[in-house]
């Protein structure tokens, strides 16, 4: 039986967002495809964490073989549809296009990829089938990109697959986290449905491992395990007023606006604390809500303890945020949330170049909503009950293929790489599936 993907709320706040990079028309795709030099051993392939054969799929778009283009993409990366929209291509494939070296605009690989994969989703093209049953079974924890990529590849090998997910939706942060102007929840779920259509991927939702289902039980049930846990809850600032209403984690807030309506009627001034990509995303999403006149938003301010040059968020993303009207306070350290029951302001102090507070520089930024984007907890600790699995700074330690120190236990995605992109999770999941298959072929002994 085919597992159903959950429905989305049509009134959810993200519904008002528009595509930042709309789908190419046939004409646009053809012109762009024909600009590609079809490089040999292309740098763009090397820059793609799932090594999609980019020149090949672009050549196919140019000859009108869109179906073949989609197959080439999805063969390497079953999440190629969402990656086409959410990948930071500026620092991946597009950034390494050789056209950049002669001052010619680089090929818009993400847009071409979207052209081909959207066509595949629309038409329901199926390129892959499940392999002959091997009698082996794999349990995957978490239903994010890493587990989905692994599950699909494992099914192609013919292994039985069960995914355990603590939440009630599928797709991980692809559904609940990425900015709606790149990818909305319904598009992410459509991709999940396409992935599941290979058949035989069992989904067990609303079960948290190991609290509701122990590692021992999982290991008893399955011949191998894959951990695609992602990262944990938003980190918090330990300063006075931290419990006030209106102080929220950024990832938590984004998950809400992607799933349901949000009430911003009492929010004139929003502040986002942090300087990474989650912070920039939160700023840009609030600016869209402001422009769409959702709630009472008048200003959106980012408060970051470092300098503009030192921020960890992508330069191109921050450039968009500035264009869209973001305000910012650099080298500012929050020292208290002000207000009685609800937050009304963020008290800060200035930092010097060495990030030391400068005495007498305290100031207050008015704030009816403060989003904290200062990191997420790492979930590595969850695996404490699995002897042999090593965790370093919260991240699960594996070899190159994703094998942990415990035979038959593999990991991939954010819980293994500390928090990268969807495409990294997709690649690591796929590679771990290859390693699991090799493990079975070699006898699959748990030691």
């Amino acid at each position: 039986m085919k597992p159903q993907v959950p429905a989305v709320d049509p009134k959810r706040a993200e519904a008002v967002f528009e595509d930042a990079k709309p789908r190419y028309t046939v004409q646009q795709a053809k012109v762009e495809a024909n600009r590609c030099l079809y490089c040999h051993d292309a740098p763009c392939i090397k820059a793609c964490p799932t090594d999609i054969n980019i020149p090949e799929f672009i050549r196919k778009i140019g000859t009108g073989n869109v179906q073949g283009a989609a197959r080439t993409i999805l063969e390497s990366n079953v999440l190629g549809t969402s990656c086409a929209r959410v990948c930071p291509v500026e620092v991946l494939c597009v950034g390494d296009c050789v056209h950049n070296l002669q001052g010619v605009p680089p090929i818009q690989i993400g847009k071409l990829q979207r052209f081909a994969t959207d066509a595949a989703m629309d038409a329901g093209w199926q390129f892959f089938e499940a392999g002959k049953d091997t009698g082996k079974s794999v349990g995957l924890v978490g239903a994010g990109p890493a587990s989905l990529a692994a599950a699909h590849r494992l099914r192609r090998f013919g292994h039985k697959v069960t995914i355990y997910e603590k939440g009630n939706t599928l797709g991980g942060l692809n559904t609940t986290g990425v900015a709606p102007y790149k990818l909305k929840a319904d598009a992410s779920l459509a991709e999940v449905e396409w992935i599941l259509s290979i058949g035989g991927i069992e989904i067990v939702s609303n079960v948290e491992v190991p609290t509701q289902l122990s590692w021992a039980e999982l290991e008893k049930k399955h011949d191998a395990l894959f951990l695609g846990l992602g990262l944990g809850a938003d980190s918090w600032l330990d300063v006075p007023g931290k419990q006030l209403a209106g102080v929220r984690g950024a990832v938590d807030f984004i998950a809400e606006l992607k799933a349901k309506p949000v009430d911003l009627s009492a929010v004139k001034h929003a502040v986002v604390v942090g300087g990474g990509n989650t912070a920039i995303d939160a700023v840009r999403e609030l600016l869209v809500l402001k422009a769409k006149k959702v709630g009472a938003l008048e200003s959106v301010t980012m408060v970051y303890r470092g300098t503009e040059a030192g921020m960890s968020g992508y330069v191109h993303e921050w450039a968009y945020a500035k264009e869209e009207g973001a305000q910012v306070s650099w080298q500012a350290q929050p020292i208290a949330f002000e207000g009685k029951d609800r937050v009304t302001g963020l008290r800060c102090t200035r930092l010097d170049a060495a990030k030391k507070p400068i005495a007498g520089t305290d100031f207050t930024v008015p704030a009816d909503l403060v989003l904290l984007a200062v990191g997420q907890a790492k979930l590595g600790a969850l695996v404490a009950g699995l002897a042999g699995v090593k965790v370093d700074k919260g991240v699960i330690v594996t070899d190159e293929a994703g094998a942990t120190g415990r035979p038959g236990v593999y990991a991939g995605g954010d819980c293994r790489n500390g928090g990268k992109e969807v495409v990294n999770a997709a690649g690591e999941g796929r590679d771990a599936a290859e390693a699991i298959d090799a493990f079975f072929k070699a006898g699959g002994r748990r030691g």
Partner: protein
Amino acid sequence: MVDLTTNCAGIVSPNPFWLASAPPANSGAQIQRAFEAGWGGAVWKTLGQPIQNVSSRFGAVGYRGTAAVGFNNIELITDRPLEVNFREIYETKKKFPKHAVVVSLMVETEAEWKEIIARAEDAGADGLELNFGCPHGMCERGMGSAVGQEPKVNERITGWVMKYAKKPVLVKLTPNVSDILPHGMAAKRGGANGVSLINTIKSIIGVDLDTFTPMPVVAGQSTNGGYCGSAVRPIALHMVGALARHREFGLPISGIGGVTNWRDAVEFLLLGASNVQVCTEVMLRGYRIVEDMIEGLSQYMEEKGFKSVQDMVGKAVPRFSEWGNLDMNYETVAKIDAAKCIGCQLCLVACHDGAHQCIHPSKDSAVRVPVVDEAECVGCNLCQIVCPVDGCITMAKVENGFPPASWNEHLSQGAKLRPKKGAH
């Protein structure tokens, strides 16, 4: 997946895509890599008395930023020892028994033909191709196009070959003739099982403006080369079609000349070729292009409901006729879709300077979409060709009330023709 198995003159291959006899088919290692990439067959680089080549050897013409739309070369036949070639043919056939290995040959005397045919067949060749086409170097030695241009010589040598060959024989024709028919017929009279065409076209690819030397340059001198690549496809298509539609010809055809992708291949098949051979596009882009060719052809066949490659061979031939049979009363005019128009006005300038001055700027200077004067439009298609937007300019049929009438019917039966347009 549809079955792409192809039979050309008795030579069977898993798909209709063969490497042409040229550098990509120069050695066993190369051809084996090509088969691994998906090519269905290969015509081995022409074997004969090994020669010595010059440098440089190649030239190309670009056009508006696209490199090598046309290509030319002054290379001769194989420069590798015959026994090495034969050993590699043997090894290749052993590793790829289902793929077609055709061996191209070019020698002079009957005795030489007899010997080389036996050696090629002993090595495992699935078929032979007679190179009567090379238009440079070899023809100065009385071979290549010097043979292909003389129907009597072509027939005689083909006849020798047919005496000794046990495997199917394709005669590779030269396009350096005014009419291809007598040459195809000569091969047929000689007993050939099929023909392949075209070989390259005599050409000078360019002239160096500083050294006053034609290209490619060999120590300050040059010579004519053989032209090939995408730009020659229309010439090759015509020659293939001319043979395919000739009532008495009827031999299988292997189509060559400017095939760059699956679309080009389909054109050759529709005009009567049983398969295609590719040289230049592989030289420019590598064996890997075959992946898209196989997929594109398979999807096309599925869409059109063709069960086998043979099903589509010649489908366009009945629609290829003489000018005198065309319907003179069929009238079209250009229509510009204002919603699609991007206002580049390339159609306007083309019509004004290159056609019949019937596309005009809008009277409203704020509107960039041009206007077609349909009363003057002769339906020539030029505007549609220069328009960079697909589907923006269409040629719409005009109901003018005249029943169909060809020029021949007009001459023989006095059929009534519509009044001329744009001839004032």
